[in-house]
């Protein structure tokens, strides 16, 4: 296979530096919780439903506890205390906390007592995740494995029923993975909408019911068309962890999940994001879900030639965080993208270099290869060719997951025909050049090899700096995606809570204890 020269010592050093970067942040994470994390734990324990105003019970519970400044003990403390006080079920306990007049917000209950009371519920919570995972795996195993790159398309009508139709259409046309894009502003909502939804701007709300509807559609499509169709969504934004749990129990295969995307691209507070990403990933690890990180996005705000190394550096950081959350390499779909200005001479070679470098640095990781977007214009014919070159690099460098480019990228969310034509073109390119990567070698001192060397060197230099300054400051300087954020700025900071000494979270503890 065509390889670029790779100095393994440098790669090892990058990993070492990233590990230290992540450890530094992890020490913060381990001392904090967030409203999102606690809501997630409630959901995992089985709390469900909305009140008369359509507000989720989990939000009511956590808002109350947070308002009372007692969330630092962890939601479990209060559930256990209500159960002890006679609540019939976890749901009942939650409703008492949410709506009850006489709820004890400073219960005298020890960590041990809480753990003991919740033990059966914790077991049930874990069993639910494990069962969903095993069910998904068994179903998936009943189909032949799809060749890589897996072809990933998005649907985004705003109406979940239309999305289901589009998902099946895509599956028939050869899609291996279907993502339902979220409504534009959902990531800034500090709650997860409830039920099936039929209205959304720029995408469809991620709700548990919507997940169910798409899972039914993709499973149906798998059976009909004889290949397994993966489902994915976004564990990102202010409800990162809750969505991770929903995805776990609704048998999703993949999730967009990144340690820094929300900070950079959604202006979500760093402290919040770091804590949330950790907990979300603990669930993801257990559920056997593959994550897709978002480094591709950097190249939409920063230049893809100058800042290519920031993608690689960030991937090491994402990897380091993921490891701390128990994810296996096989679950790390690190993201990168074909975003170099197509007008640059030999840009195809630079893209080849980057794609191949990342393939080699992360050899067993299900690398996620993202299409050109920024330099797409409304000339759909030209855009289609641009995507073809992208697909060619995808197959030549053996990327694992390929999000298909759409010729209408600069126009609208993809429509039925756009997706159909993209799948058709991609199938052609992948098939006609299937063995290309095995057929060629790169010249030892050529453009490709030198570019790969350069990017690794620059990533290493950058990681040295980040490790020296700490991630907080690096982000403050605009190291990633040319975007600067401050430690206490951004959305959702108010939802970050320091854990008190008697903080208790037996579900997280169980996830952490699991290998």
């Amino acid at each position, binding site marked *: 296979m065509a390889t670029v020269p790779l100095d393994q010592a440098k790669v090892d050093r990058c990993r070492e530096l990233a590990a230290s970067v992540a450890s530094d942040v992890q020490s913060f994470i381990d001392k904090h919780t967030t409203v999102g994390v606690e809501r997630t734990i409630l959901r995992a324990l089985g709390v469900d439903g909305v009140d008369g105003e359509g507000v989720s019970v989990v939000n009511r519970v956590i808002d109350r506890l947070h308002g009372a400044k007692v969330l630092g003990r962890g939601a479990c403390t209060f559930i256990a205390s209500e159960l002890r006080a006679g609540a019939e079920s976890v749901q009942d306990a939650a409703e008492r906390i949410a709506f009850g007049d006489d709820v004890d917000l400073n219960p005298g209950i020890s960590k041990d007592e809480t753990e003991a009371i919740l033990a059966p519920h914790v077991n049930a919570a874990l069993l639910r995740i494990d069962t969903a995972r095993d069910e998904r795996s068994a179903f998936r195993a009943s189909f032949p494995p799809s060749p890589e790159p897996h072809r990933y398309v998005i649907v985004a009508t705003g109406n979940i029923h239309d999305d289901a139709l589009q998902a099946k259409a895509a599956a028939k046309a050869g899609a291996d993975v279907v993502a339902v894009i979220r409504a534009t502003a959902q990531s800034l909502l500090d709650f997860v909408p409830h039920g099936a939804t039929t209205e959304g701007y720029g995408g469809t709300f991620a709700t548990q019911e919507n997940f169910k509807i798409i899972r039914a559609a993709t499973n149906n499509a798998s059976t009909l068309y004889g290949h397994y169709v993966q489902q994915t969504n976004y564990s990102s934004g202010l409800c990162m962890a809750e969505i991770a749990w929903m995805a776990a129990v609704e048998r999703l295969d993949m999730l967009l999940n990144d340690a820094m995307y929300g900070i950079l691209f959604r202006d979500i507070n760093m402290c919040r994001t770091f804590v949330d990403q950790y907990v979300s990933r603990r669930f993801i690890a257990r559920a056997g879900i593959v994550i897709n990180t978002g480094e591709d996005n950097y190249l939409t705000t920063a230049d893809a030639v100058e800042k290519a190394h920031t993608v690689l550096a960030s991937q090491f950081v994402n990897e380091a965080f993921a490891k701390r959350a128990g994810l296996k390499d096989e679950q790390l779909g690190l993201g990168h993208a074909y975003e170099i200005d197509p007008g640059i001479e030999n840009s195809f070679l630079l893209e080849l270099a980057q794609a191949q470098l990342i393939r080699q640095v992360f050899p067993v990781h299900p690398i996620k290869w993202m299409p050109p977007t920024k330099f797409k214009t*409304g*000339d*759909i014919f030209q855009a289609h060719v641009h995507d073809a070159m992208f697909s060619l690099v995808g197959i030549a460098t053996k990327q694992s997951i390929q999000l298909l480019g759409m010729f209408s990228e600069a126009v*609208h969310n*993809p*429509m039925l*025909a756009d997706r159909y034509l993209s799948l058709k073109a991609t199938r052609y390119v992948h098939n006609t050049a299937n063995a290309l990567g095995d057929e060629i070698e790169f010249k030892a001192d050529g453009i490709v090899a030198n570019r790969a060397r350069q990017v690794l060197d620059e990533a290493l230099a950058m990681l040295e700096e980040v490790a020296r300054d700490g991630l907080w400051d690096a982000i403050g300087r605009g190291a990633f995606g040319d975007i600067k954020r401050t430690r206490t700025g951004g959305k959702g900071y108010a939802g970050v809570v320091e854990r008190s000494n008697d903080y208790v979270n037996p579900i997280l503890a169980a996830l952490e204890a699991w290998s």
Partner: protein
Amino acid sequence: MSELPNRPIKAYGDREGDGMVQLSFVLRIPPSVRAREAAKRFAESHGLDEPLVTTMEEAAEGFSYFVVYGHSKHTVNPGEIEVPEVKTSVMGRDVIEKRIKLLDRKLVVVGACTGSDAHTVGIDAILNYKGISGDKGLESYKGFEAYNLGAQVENDFLIERARAIGADAILVSQVITQRNCHKENGEALIEMLKAQGLREKFICLFGGPRVDHALGLELGFDAGFGPGTKPSDVASYLVDRLCPAYDDEAPH
């Protein structure tokens, strides 16, 4: 075919009824703010609501190329559409051979690409042994005697040969369609046959990438065959027209 909806339907973008269509064209004006507006209005005149001009580029000096998306107001009712179709259901090779056997002679066919048209690949696919996409040509059947006269054949020569070999069917291929020359060539053959009182002696088939059954009928042929035609389609049609049915075969 009765499952087609019997109500007006719109184009489908990603939701029922959104009417989304994509249009591209060139106008002889250089790119400008007004040119963009002209393109928008031009699109509107086609019945497109909220047209979005996604591209305006100078395709040549004084010419702009546009891509537009818009919501088409128009509908079509598939249930109301009547269009002639070749009725024969395709038979297997054994059925074809068996039915020709009942006739006690071979079916003789002669084909050509007529006029100045030199595109023989289509007629070769139907007649020659090789066939197309794994479906072997008429030559490959024991029951057929197939003559392929090739390209650029004049109509009178084709008729002469058809008479000489005692053909059951004449197969005409026309690929070049500029200014409808394929229609002229096809019609001319039929006229010539009629003038010579020979039209009824042959089954006449018309084929090519821009041909359908309706066009074949319109020009006076017995049938028309378009893109994707397989030799077995043609064989089935001819057998159906020329050979007795045998008992254990379902009627059609």
